[in-house]
């Protein structure tokens, strides 16, 4: 829970900062300027480098709790130790998942921010060690005249290893409401599970009326925002309800909630942001929208290493919810990519 995470991370950061100061690394400033809350950060230390800290922050709106980050004087160390269940040993209790607030790994563990385990032999170098399973992904959802279409690729990667070639990243959370998942596979599956639970209860309470997409998105946002310190999940919620018809909401890292006519997410989305901005138009027909979604995902797949596999689409409107996919060899290819249609260019020689 939040309190425990803050306490534990506090100790960790403090110890890390002490160590790093010794090695001349300096202290990172939280992106929302925690220093202004009365904590003093020793900026006179050699090697203090604001630039480096900013590039280490993955996102600007992630709140990283720096309570406990002060100088390494006697009082601070004592104060840190006074917190329940902590102390110098507390910092070693790494079970991980995810506090990853520092990259000082002299005591080993899992750094959720970069998704890397380390054995604790000192600073980490290249991320060639085992990585957490991520859905480095391309996800997209658009409204059209009468409903929404969600699209996604199907590659789940764990570093360079493709854990699942045919993953389904579009999860149903409620009748006629779907969730596209990107980021950590574990986190998004957990969120989808909770959302499903709460929405089922909600649907029962509401009776005949179905769940609204807005309620589903709100629940996802509450979970994402409430656990923002350690979560790595960017999600798009889209669906159809009676009152507002087709709707798309996006909950990026950090737990904002935005009501948008279309959205893209995941690592592959950066390559198609401009394409989608330029080519989406309101009130498309279903077929137009579907081919638009497929084209966008295929463009992202062709440039993003963490996206690939099949292109899945889900069409939701008043009358139907249809799940389809475009097989791997039917996915459009561009420019100099190898054509997988037709006879193979190379003959296989039997040995």
């Amino acid at each position: 829970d939040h309190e425990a995470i803050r306490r534990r991370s506090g100790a960790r950061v403090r110890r890390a900062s002490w160590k790093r100061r010794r090695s001349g690394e300096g202290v990172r400033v939280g992106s929302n300027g925690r220093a202004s809350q009365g904590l003093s950060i020793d900026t006179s230390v050699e090697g203090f480098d604001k630039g480096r800290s900013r590039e280490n922050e993955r996102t600007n709106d992630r709140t990283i709790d720096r309570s406990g980050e002060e100088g390494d004087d006697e009082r601070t160390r004592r104060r840190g130790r006074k917190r329940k269940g902590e102390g110098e040993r507390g910092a070693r209790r790494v079970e991980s998942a995810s506090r990853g607030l520092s990259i000082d790994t002299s005591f080993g563990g899992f750094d959720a921010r970069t998704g890397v385990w380390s054995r604790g032999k000192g600073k980490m170098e290249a991320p060639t060690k085992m990585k957490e399973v991520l859905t480095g992904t391309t996800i997209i959802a658009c409204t059209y005249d009468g409903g929404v279409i969600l699209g996604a690729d199907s590659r789940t990667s764990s570093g360079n290893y493709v854990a699942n070639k045919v993953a389904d990243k579009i999860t149903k959370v409620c009748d006629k409401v779907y969730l596209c998942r990107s980021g950590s596979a574990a986190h998004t599956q957990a969120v989808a599970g909770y959302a499903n639970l709460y929405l089922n209860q909600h649907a029962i309470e509401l009776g005949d009326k179905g769940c609204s997409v807005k309620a589903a998105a709100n629940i996802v946002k509450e979970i994402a925002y409430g656990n923002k310190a350690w979560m790595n999940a960017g999600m798009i919620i889209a669906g159809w309800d009676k009152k507002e018809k087709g709707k798309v909401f996006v909950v990026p890292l950090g737990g904002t909630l935005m009501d948008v006519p279309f959205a893209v997410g995941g690592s592959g989305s950066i390559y198609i942001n401009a394409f989608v901005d330029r080519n989406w138009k309101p009130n498309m027909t279903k077929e137009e929208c579907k081919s638009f979604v497929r084209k966008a995902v295929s463009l992202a797949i062709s440039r993003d290493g963490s996206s690939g596999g099949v292109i899945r689409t889900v069409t939701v409107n008043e009358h139907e919810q249809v799940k389809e996919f475009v097989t791997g060899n039917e996915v459009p290819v561009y420019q100099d990519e190898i054509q997988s249609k037709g006879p193979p260019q190379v003959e296989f020689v039997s040995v």
Partner: protein
Amino acid sequence: MSGAGSGYDLSVTTFSPEGRVFQVEYAGKAVDNGVPSVGVACKDGAILAVEKPEETKMMLPGSNRRIFTVAKHVGMAVPGKLPDGRQIVSRAQQECENYKRFYGNTIPTKVLSDRLANYCHAFSLYWHLRPLGSAALTASYDDNGPHIYLSETNGVSYRYYGIAVGKGRQGIKTELERLKLGNMTCREALKTVCKCLIKQRDDQGSKKFEIEMAWICDESDRQFVRVPEDVAKEAEDAAKREIEQEDEDSSDMES
């Protein structure tokens, strides 16, 4: 007050041999002997009206509120024991806020009244609590139109076209049944509601009273608000005039 329960009415956790829980019924009596309250759902909105006798000349008129706003789109009158009623209102306000925060939408009235009914019912399950001596007469206007719900002390909650609780409710109910509420606008219904309330008084003539009215309708922009003073006064005066005309023995009518 002896006899009816004869020993089975000493605790809310005791059933009588006929299967009644007397304490809960007695709580209902607190509502039945309370101030007359009426709720009607019209074509374009819902109205709540409570008729309060003037308890003392020294009290400022309008200071003992009986009708409360629970959310922008929901309001509530609490006949019966007022302090118990305020407890229900407070809980309803929390429910509305929690629902909005968690689901993003305003709470549907059916959900709210179910939750209030469960809340009232919970008080009848434990020996160390007493049932609340107040009902919740809820008026709202959401996507499905205007609603009037009554959540009673025993934990049931029903939706009504029009309902009266408190003293003289039988007479008022009979009057309401004669009306075609679905065809009336709120303004028209206001006068009728005032008329019902005034008529049912057993008249000592000298006692002063005050009718507190609130509505939620298209005219009030679908927000639950007190009926504006001029509209309220107009309705009350029109009601009084009608009663005087109808009644041959005008001496029995209070001023």
